[in-house]
Each structure stands twice: as C-alpha cells, then as structure tokens.
C-alpha cells in the first residue's frame, strides 16, 4: 500500500483533491447560510449580501471544474505510470481493474465534471433572468455535487490504498474478452447490430435536436454515451490498434496512438453535455449547431481508422 502512496503522482493527486474538497467545504458552508436566509423577491441589503456570497460559491465551483478536468487527465496518466509498478499491468486498464474501486472512481469523476458543467449552465440561466428563478435550485444542486465529490475522494483513497504491488492483475485483453460465450456487449447484441445501432442513434439524436424534442434528446444522448463506449472498446479500438485482440479504452489515450482517445472520448463527452444542456434549457440555433459539430467530430474520429483500414485492406479484423 505505501509503495503506491509514495509515488509522486498519486500523493499529489490526493493532495490536490483534498485541497479542492476543503475549498468546496467553504462553498458548502456559504450555500447552507444562503439557503437559510434567502427570500425570493426581497430587496433588502441582507438579501443582497446573500447574493454576494453566492458569487463565492460560483467562483469555487468554476475553479474546481477547471482543476477537476486537469486532474482527470493527470489521473489517467498516473494510472498508466502505475502500470510500471503493478505486476501484470500493461496499461491503465490493469491498474483500474486491480480492485473494485477503480472503475466507480473513474466513472464518478466523469459524472462530476458533467454535473458541474450543467450547474454552470443553470447558473447562467439564473443570472440572466431578472428575478433569479433558479437560485435555490442551483444551491441544492450544488449540495448534490458536493456529496458526490466527497464520495469520489473517499473512493479514490480506497482505490489507491488497495492497489497491490505484489498481486498480479489482468491485462486488457483478458479484462475485455468474452467470458464463456457471455458477450460483454449490452442487450446481447452482435458487433454488427451494435455498430448499426451506433450510427442509427447518432442520426436520431440530430433529428430530435432539430425537432426540439427535449425528453427524447435527453434520454437518447445518455443511451448513446453508453453504447458508444462499447462500440469504441469492442469495435473501433481494434482498428486504432490494428490488432483483433487489443480492446482497451486506455491505450488510445497514450502518445503511441497520438492521444486520439482524448479526441474521441472528449468529443463524445462534449456532445453529451450539449445535448443534456439543450434539452434542459434552450433549443437555440447555437446549441443545436454545437451538438451537430461535436457529434460529427466524435463519429469521424472514432470511425475513421475503421473506414481507412477497411478501404485499404478490404477485410475486417
């Protein structure tokens, strides 16, 4: 346990996360104070003072968002570095699956960033309107985010302290393989069906975005993130690595593959964010344009290696 904690990257990751958490505790204190005293529509100096406090909460959340994004990239980098110390691990995939806290920590980090971005969008809507229609809602939303960040910190500590430098872990070809005829792909779809669904859902999302269908857009974009993950890992990744057994979402984040993973997962994340934001707040032309562009970047970056390989070689892996 102590070997891992003394690695520079891990101790710094935890230190910064802890520092941000302390800052968020300050924000929480102010949030509770504001919620106690806030009266909608009042124009007293006390109310004005509470409004000023809310700016501290806004500043802290914005700052934490920027740091969380940087730390997420640092986290994936740390996982890859740890694969040098963890026996059996060839890349981050092995380290993440070394105990049961790895995957939930990573997923929670992504969810938190998404929620903070949505919080900022809600805050913008609240500020733009004249009478702060979402003031209390955004503060309650912040409390939810705070709780999730506390959970994330807890999971991260558990994850790092439970990585063993003695017990070997599995590498990605074992983690992502089919186990006893039970396909890891959801709804027991075949690869062809998954990819057909992948492209079809993309088309439907664009249709719903332009047809201003809120609920359908929201649901479909979340669903699409889910099946995109499987499509990338179990199909498109093979053509990025040009190896039929190499199914790994982490290796494509490394310099060996020109960091294309960041473009793929980054554009998917951004597209999902715009979809959720649009379905919750506003179907403006700009938002729909952003959805179209980000999904198109995602589709191109993920499927281009496949199409190039297929057109060049005429066969599938």
């Amino acid at each position, binding site marked *: 346990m102590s*070997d891992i904690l003394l*690695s520079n*990257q891990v101790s*710094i990751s935890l230190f910064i996360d802890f520092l941000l958490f302390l800052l968020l505790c300050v924000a929480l204190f102010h949030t509770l104070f504001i919620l106690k005293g806030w009266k909608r529509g009042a124009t007293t100096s006390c109310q004005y003072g509470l409004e000023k406090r809310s700016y501290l909460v806004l500043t802290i959340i914005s700052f934490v968002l920027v740091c969380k994004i*940087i730390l997420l990239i640092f986290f994936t980098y740390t996982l890859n570095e740890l694969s040098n110390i963890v026996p059996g691990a060839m890349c981050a995939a092995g380290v993440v699956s070394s105990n049961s806290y790895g995957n939930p920590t990573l997923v929670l980090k992504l969810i938190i960033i998404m929620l903070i971005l949505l919080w900022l969008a809600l805050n913008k809507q609240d500020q733009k309107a004249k009478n702060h229609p979402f003031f209390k809602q955004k503060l309650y939303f912040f409390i939810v985010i705070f709780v999730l960040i506390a959970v994330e910190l807890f999971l991260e500590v558990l994850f790092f302290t439970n990585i063993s430098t003695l017990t070997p872990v599995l590498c990605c070809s074992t983690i992502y393989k089919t186990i006893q005829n039970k396909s890891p792909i959801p709804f027991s779809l075949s690869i062809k069906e998954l990819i057909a669904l992948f492209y079809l859902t993309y088309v439907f999302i664009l249709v719903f975005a332009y047809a201003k269908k809120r609920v359908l857009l929201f649901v479909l974009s979340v669903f699409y993130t889910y099946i995109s993950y499987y499509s990338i890992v179990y199909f498109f990744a093979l053509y990025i690595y040009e190896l039929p057994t190499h199914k790994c979402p982490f290796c494509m984040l490394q310099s060996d593959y020109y960091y294309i993973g960041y473009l793929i997962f980054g554009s998917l994340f951004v597209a999902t964010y715009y979809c959720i934001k649009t379905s919750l707040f506003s179907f403006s032309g700009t938002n729909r344009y952003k959805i179209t562009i980000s999904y198109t970047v995602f589709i191109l970056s993920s499927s281009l290696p496949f199409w190039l390989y297929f057109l060049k070689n005429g066969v599938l892996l």
Partner: protein
Amino acid sequence: MLNKKYIKFLFLLLLTYKKKHLSVFVISTVIVAVLTSTLFISSAIQKDIYITLDGQADFTIQRYKAGKVLNTPESWIDEFLDIDGVSQVQGRIYGMHFYEPAETYFMIVGVDLFDQEVSANLKKLINGIDIDKFLARDNMIIGSDVKKFFDEYQYKGSYSFRPPDRSIKKVYIYDTFPKDSNIVSSDMIIMDKDLARKILGVEDGYVTDIVLEVPNPKEREMVRQKLIISHFNARIIQKKDIKRYYKNLFNYKGGVFLTLYIIVLITFLLILYQRYSLISQNDSKEIALLRSMGWRIDSVIYLKVAENFFVAFGAYLSGVIIAYIYVFFLDAPLLKNIFLGYTNLAHDVSFTPNINNTDLGIIFLVFIIPFLVAIIIPAWQKATIEPTEIMR
C-alpha cells in the same frame, strides 16, 4: 469573458503594478526552484541508474547460507550454460574494500579484459584501453570520487591494498573515469579479474556471483524456474526486480521530500492568504471604481484570480529555469546529497540534462493550484467591495 480586451487590460495592470506582486513572486520562485531541483536531480539519477540497469544482465545468481550471501561456486557456470534459452553465463568478481583513512568503502570490480562478453556498461568504461600496457603490471582504473580521495590522502600514482591474507598489494593508477561518464562508476575501481580476486580474498573455484543473459523475454520465466530448482541455496535476482526496487526507493525518498515540501507550501499559502486578505485603501478604491463602471462581481474575481495566476505562472517558469541551471550547469551543490547519500563517498558527479513532462506537470499542479486556492477567497472579498467607496 476571456476576450482580447480583457487580456490586454490584465497585462496592463500586471505590468503597471509589478511592485505589488514582487515579494510574492520572489518567494514563489524560490519555492518552485527548490522543488524543481529535487525533481530534476531525482529524475537524472533515476535515468542514469536505469541506463546502467539496462546494461545489466537479465539474471544474477548468488549463493546463500543462513541468510548471508557467500561466494558462488564457479562450477555452477557450466550447469547454467546447459539450460535452454541461456545465451551467456559469466562469473563476476567484485566487492567492497574498506579505505581506513577516510572510513569509507570503494567498490572493486574485477574484469576479464579479453572476455568478449563483458557487460555493456563495463565495455563503455574500458573502451580504448591498451590491454597489453594495462596488464603489464598491476594496474587499476578509478572513478572520479576515488581519485578525489586518493589525492586528498596523497596517493598519487598507486595505492597499496591489504588483502585478507595480510599481504600488501601495490596497484598502480592507470587512468580515471571521466566525471560525467556515469553516476554509478564514480566510486568504482576496475582491475584485472585475478588481481581483484587476490585483493578481495575470493578463493579459487569461486566467484562473487554469476550473471546470465536470456535474450528471449518469453523464456525468462521458464529459465527462472529452472534456476530456482538448480540449487536450494541459490538466490535469483532478475533485472526487472532491481528496476522496481529502485523505483520504489526513489518513490520513498521523493515521497519523504514531497511531504516536507507540502508542509512548507502550506505555511506559505497561509501567509499568502493573510496577505491578500488585507485589503488596502488603494485596493478598495480600485475595486469600487471598477464596480461603479459596471464591472460585475464575477468579472472582478476573474481579474484578480487571473492576475495571481500569471504571477504564479511567472514564478513557475522562473523557478524551473533557475532549477535547470542549478542542477544541470552547477551540479546542484548541497541538494544532490539528499539522494546520493553519504554512505559511500561524497559524490562528485554531474547530471545529464534531462527534463520530462511528468516532472514539469507535477510542479505545475503542486504549486499553482494550491496558490490559486489560497487567493480565491481573498479575491472574492475584494470583488464584493461596495462601489459606494468611490463616492467618499
């Protein structure tokens, strides 16, 4: 928010009011420089050790008895040659010699100069030697630290060793390794294998340990199993185990330093927080003015945070540059001993310039983010100053 005008105004303020940030900038630069120097030294040593390790054999076999390492029988060499996958096997003679005047140890390494299969590292060090001249009498090649000590104690052209059989063996200094050849070679003495055997008292038929190469990585596990069952008292050390050991050692030393650094940093941040919380009259007027002109609270906060970010970033860049000069041009006096230690000789080494992105990223994270955390609340306190201040 982040438009051209904003950035222009930000730099205008920073350049016009430089004195305001000077003290913070200087202290920050020192802190970054110290941290960066440590990381640079650590990385440089690690890199050098890894290069050395890469030149090491895949397997090292030693003989154990009752938990102690003893000399290994030379007969084991032929047994190991019979194992499939093993390409080269060699017995090594080396050991520590106690240098009484300074109460320190040298590493004596015996080399068979005619052996084609001498390890890559040693090959580098002994390249270009006139073998006949070297073997004409008892000669040795010494590391730069050894030379320093010999000079200090007036051993100019030779040194008389005292082997265990109480005889005296005079060995002449043939040459010295250059200072920057390798950190690992600085306290080493290289001599002919038989001479080393005599000086270290290694009996005939024995060697200090045996090294062997297994070129095919897929066969290494199988070879390892065979080596383990070959002799009950054999201790098998694989190259990758050594690498992991060193990585953990560096993590340990680095971790201890980092912990101490973080304590210093926290103190600095508390001071920073206090300093920025003191709102001077000038500050009040400046903020009230901005607010009266229509600047929103969040615009003012972002301005203050951005101002401090650039001060911190400037300190980061300056600190890194100063550290680079300190470590790679001045050879890091004082600090290098934290990692190289005083266990052998005080080291007179120079570091190979090497920067990796991890180190730079770590310094950025561990300095700039805490710095900004310390100033966020003071920045908000300033931004919420009432614009009525300007009406006074």
